[in-house]
């Protein structure tokens, strides 16, 4: 880019720093409409920017790629794989309690008859991290958490978008894994995660795996069964109230986009916190599945 073009763009698009121009001008140098636009834009940029709110150690910044990433032989996708014992507790319940859920109760609660016949041990627990809530082609799904029970263990695969150039590979691998599962379990994923993935898959010509795949979205039935009991029906509230899950040092999801942007920009980033947050979300899906079964059974 020529210096001349940069200077011109700077004049037209960017509020001139008052400090940069020594003689104080009585009037703003950029027109209010443009300035307001820029401020609105900056407000959003500010949201991605590191907050001054104290974030505990586990969410501290690090430099370089997230630890423990392995490349998938088949697709080249990079992922972190965590294996937990099915007996390990998440809050007050072991993860494997999910497998003890009553399928009939789940089917009834979720109004999804297909669940009655499905092998629950082949269910896939899904939660993603994205660069924005508004959707659209420019929103990246940069972390896909998919978990399933393998024998005695709970295996969490966290596919990570190491570079925006690798999107298609991550999406294809994600689609393959979803296709292999008996059903998908998520929290608000029918309304959000699924659409972000489908939009991106269509963009790359990858057949989305969700059609005809039973999808149990815990949010709706839990909300229905517990309506009015808690302050709200967010995941954080329900996991605490229904499964005794308390998180320490949780990095709020709103920090996720900035963490990834910082990583790509080769700045210190909080991706470790994002991985942990996503891991905890996926684990909560397992214990909340059982909580749903219990709640439906006691509701009759």
């Amino acid at each position, binding site marked *: 880019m020529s210096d001349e073009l*940069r200077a011109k763009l700077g004049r037209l698009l960017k509020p001139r720093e008052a400090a940069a121009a020594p003689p104080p001008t009585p009037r703003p140098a*950029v027109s209010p409409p443009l300035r307001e636009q820029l401020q609105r834009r900056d407000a959003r940029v500010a949201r991605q920017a590191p907050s001054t709110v104290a974030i505990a150690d586990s969410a501290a910044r690090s430099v370089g790629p997230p630890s423990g990433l392995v490349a998938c032989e088949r697709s080249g996708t990079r992922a972190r794989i965590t294996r937990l014992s099915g007996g390990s507790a998440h809050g007050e319940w072991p993860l494997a309690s999910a497998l003890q859920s009553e399928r009939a109760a789940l089917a009834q609660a979720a109004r999804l008859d297909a669940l009655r016949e499905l092998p629950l041990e082949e269910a896939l627990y899904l939660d993603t991290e994205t660069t924005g809530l508004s959707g659209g082609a420019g929103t990246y799904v940069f972390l896909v958490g998919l978990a399933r029970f393998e024998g005695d263990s709970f295996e969490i695969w966290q596919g990570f978008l190491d570079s925006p150039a690798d999107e298609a590979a991550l999406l294809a691998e994600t689609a393959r894994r979803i296709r292999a599962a008996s059903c998908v379990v998520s929290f608000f994923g029918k309304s959000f995660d699924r659409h972000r993935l489908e939009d991106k898959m269509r963009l790359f010509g990858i057949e989305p795996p969700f059609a005809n795949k039973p999808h149990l979205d815990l949010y709706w039935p839990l909300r229905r069964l517990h309506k009015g009991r808690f302050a709200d029906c967010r995941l954080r509230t329900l996991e605490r109230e229904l499964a005794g899950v308390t998180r320490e040092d949780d990095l709020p999801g709103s920090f996720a986009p900035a963490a990834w942007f910082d990583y790509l*920009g080769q700045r210190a980033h909080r991706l470790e916190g994002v991985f942990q947050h996503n891991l905890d979300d996926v684990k909560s899906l397992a214990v909340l599945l059982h909580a749903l079964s219990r709640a439906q059974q006691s509701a009759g």
Partner: protein
Amino acid sequence: MGNSSGTGRIGAERAPTEGGERRARSARGVEELVEWLSSDPRWMGRMERWHRIPPRPARTSAFPERLDPRLVELCRSRGIEELYEHQARFVEHALDGEDTLIATPTASGKTLCYTLAVLQRLLETKGSARSLFLFPTKALSQDQTAVLTRAVETLGQEWHAYTYDGDTPPSVRRTLRDRGHLVLTNPWMLHAGILPNHSKWSELFRDLAYIVIDEVHTLSGVFGSSVANVLRRLLRIARHYGSNPRFLLCSATLADPVGHARRLTGRTVRVVSEDGSPSGEKIFGVYNPPILNPVAGLRANALEEARELATTVCGPSHQTIFFCQRRTSVEVLTRYLKESAGQMGLRPEEIKGYRGGYLPNLRREIEQGLRDGSVKVVVSTNALELGIDIGALDVAVLVGYPGSQASFWQRAGRVGRRQKPSLALVIARSDPVDQYLARHPERLFGAAREELGLDPDNLVILSEQLKCAAFELPFRSDEQGQLRDEPEFGSVDAASGVLDYLAEDSRFLHKQSGTWYWMSDAYPAQDVTLGGDDPDNVLILDVETKKAIGEIDRPSSITTVHQGAIYQVQGDTWKVENFDHKNRRAYVRHVESDYFTEAELDVEVRVLRLEERLLREQRAQDALLEDGGEPVLDADLQRGEVHVTSVATLYKKIRFYTRENVGAEDIHLPPEELDSEAFILTLSDETANRLGLASGDRGAAWRGVGAVLRRVAPLVLNCQPKDLGLSTQVRSPHFQRPAIFLYDTVQGGVGLSEVLFRSYRELLRAAHDVVAHCACERGCPACVGPAEEVGMLGKETALAVLTHFVQGGSFAPGELEPER
């Protein structure tokens, strides 16, 4: 013309609306009106010129042979036995796979052209070829959806035509995306809804055969330049999904259809412009108001003349439309006409005002009234010039030349039915261009001359649109850092530089391995406007009902809805009690006001950067030196970037009818700021002194020169005078000599100053011609401004300055002066 003398003044009492006047006038047709206007002593002297376009029979053509017999059958079932020539040619080109533009007047059957092409492709592909339609208004797309749906039903096909706009319920959007063969939308929805979510529309983009755009002559200025970029984005997305759609464009008659279409779409289109449809006789009249004050050369006020003329040209048996230049004029004239409805044999409710800023349901109601004939008179701004279906009316009165030939023909084209003659009258104002055209009316009826201003490469617009485009798909660069495989944006020199800027300076993008990726959690299309509907508009709220009664663009708000302003809707007056400038809300209360308000604006221009200069030198007037001395500056013309600050200073209260000034008050509002481009004229101090600019009237005469230049600019450039701002400085802080700035009122500029710079000869000559030939003695509103404003010697001095610019020798490219 019968017994009603046409003056409407017989009987001072209000005529009973269903009584004699209404009956008497119901027999009057256009022919009688013309005869009356050209023979009655009161009017005949004011009619400067009549021009008649004789009735024209249809030129028809058989259905193209390759047109599917089912479509021929469809036409026949609608009573269409053959096509007009232009329709047949359009269909042929479109079916040949060419990008095609039809540029013919309103009501020549343009809709059928693209309908046949689109349906033929659907039949040929057994329902797979899809089309996307863009209309400038929601109402138009809804009308067309109904038309297409009926056609598809008649063909017995299972295809679907849908309107996709802000009113489409979310529940049907999905069906529409997956199953809509014909999707009818508008540029805003395409920009903010469809393109950013293109993967949801992958079915449409995969099989996109045609992009149909109606009313492409409305796509100029900032809006058009933005839409041109939206189309670049559209083609880019279509290419991603493997389709290469063709454009089918419709337009009113254009000066340079090929050039306009190329700037808009980036493609070379086939143009069909010979209209084969029949038409009734069209009669045009140029009306010049009488000179009231021979010394001042002042003519009667055009709005007052329109009011008087209305008593003759309005009546219950035909529909009349008045076009005013300003919203305030619409309100004033509507009020006048409603008050004298009885004299025209009309009821007040048969007379309506119409302008932008009215809420949609009120507008729809008036449009319906025009179509079904219940509205007999409508007073409008250019809002009704656009492609809104109001049927064909009978008489059009243009209160003032609308500033461009295209607009003139659009407005005049609102009248004219197939079988009946129609009449269009232009009332010349005391305005340089109006009077110039009253002297040279052949210019009005000749071929279209002005081009539409469209600059898709305006840096502000381009960079905003590139943000949206990068959100939709990443951009790749080649080894030289230029865009790779991007036929649309790749042809723009600045594109890769802007992307770098967005990555390096604004951090919206992330560049990695030669690819620019969108890298922000924002949704850019939400914040990028197309210029047609600025979200920064000020909402006008009734303090009593808490309801919005209208809206207004921000730059105009400081002179229109400042505290104390009288805001008018449908002739009703509202007083602004409080203007919350920061939150863009004006709170108004309904009052019976006998005055309206006019605000004054103080403008300051600062030079940021000069880009080009033409100058003229002269030998220093130093008699002692034999060689006449070193050449020194005489005058120059420049263009460059400027920063403009506008402050509303005070407003005057002006009584209706008498225009008596009944008071003035200060306005306290923050200034409006603008970064733009200007065309600049300066004179050396020596020359200025010699021309008499140094005397007491110096500033006033210099301002007079600027005022004429600004007012005649529409003769060389398709723009409204409001598109150009004026600032004159007798001693410019930047140049240290007299300077005139004509600047583009759009942020970043859309190239107007560049056109002025290139056309300076014609511009200066027209200004000179206007001042030299004006009938006044010492200045008037039709040239440099009235003597009270420009001073006793103002006109003489201004004419000397213009004569010097025009006849003082040629200008040559010169070096820019060093920064001071």
